[in-house]
């Protein structure tokens, strides 16, 4: 086993009720230390009220070469956007 502390990804939820957001990474020997370090590094200026840490090797990421097949279908379905439909002004706000 490598002596190097594993890499953790850090997610923080800010005051305003938004989702946890990825803010960066750090090295720590275990989850408990990762949380403590994340607090010291990423929340020194009221950045958040809740922290998640996930060991980086547990994250499965999509690969850039899949960009075409993964996202193309969403481009051909314009009717998913509300602006696709013309609603007359007389119908009022919708």
């Amino acid at each position, binding site marked *: *086993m490598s*002596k*190097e*502390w594993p*890499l953790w990804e850090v997610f923080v939820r800010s005051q305003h009720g938004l989702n946890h957001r990825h*803010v*960066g*990474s*750090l*090295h720590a*020997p*275990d989850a408990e*230390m990762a949380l403590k370090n994340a607090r*010291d*590094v990423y929340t*020194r*200026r009221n950045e958040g009220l809740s922290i998640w840490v996930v060991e980086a090797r547990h994250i499965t*990421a999509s*690969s*850039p070469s899949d960009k075409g097949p993964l996202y193309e279908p969403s481009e051909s379905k314009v009717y998913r956007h509300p602006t696709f439909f013309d609603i007359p002004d007389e119908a009022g706000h919708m």
Partner: protein
Amino acid sequence: MYAQMIKSEASAEDPEKLAAFQARIDAGEKIEPKDWMPEGYRKTLIRQIGQHAHSEIVGQLPEGNWITRAPTLERKAILLAKVQDEAGHGLYLYCAAETLGVSRDELTEMLLDGRMKYSSIFNYPTLTWADMGAVGWLVDGAAIMNQVPLQRTSFGPYSRAMIRICKEESFHQRQGYDIMMKMARGTDAQRKMAQDALNRFWYPSLMMFGPSDKDSVHSAQSMAWKIKMNTNDELRQKFVDQTVPQAEYLGLTVPDPNLTWNEEKGGYDFSEPDWSEFFEVIKGNGPCNTERLEARNKAWDDGAWVREGLMAHAAKKRAAKLAAE
């Protein structure tokens, strides 16, 4: 600037791929770690981000020197917070470099055995409390000049690290200027100390931007890749133009008899620093090179048992948890 004299690597890859890559950069797209990138882009970035990270870490030493001797408890708390920020900056940058396929320990080892550099500025000593003012005002000021445009750099993780860092930097510069104001308005002895700090840090601060790179092939490549956003001379000029009025406000004199306002260019004319001194410092012959590297090596060696012990503890806890399941 914390990354000086970064040589960019040539790339011997498929011209079509290279052109497509350059087109993405020209279109303002961010390059992310899993995207295809030229080997030269990757290697140059590791060198640049690594050197930047090392500078943040070594840069804690000259200021750490004064934490225990700060004149008031408030100044001590402020300086401590500032130095702690720098540790964070190092961490953000190491993490950005790691996405390019180099490990933290590898980077650290390259700093410790001298294969990688850090900014020349941190090889100068901090002799008096006024130096804490001059460092925050001038050194962090020069760093900000370089880091603000780098927020738009093409490599996503580097850009995001820069955005975080820039948010924290302005506190650094302002606390430094605040110290300078106090000293400059203080007793004769304090004013002298402030002037002396400016005298010693002025030229080393100008050196932070690196030598003139008008003719450098390396910077042309780095600028095309958007990992360097301005020439060294542009940034140095901007720094002088911003800093001279601040020195005037303090009633201090910039130690340059040739400093004059040039109406035509809308900026100051000023003397170049002594570049032979700069190259000596880069080579390892500055006043504090040996001390700085010794301090980093000692910290690394003394911390080995903690790093290993915590890993062993984590493994033991994991095993115990598995056994209980």
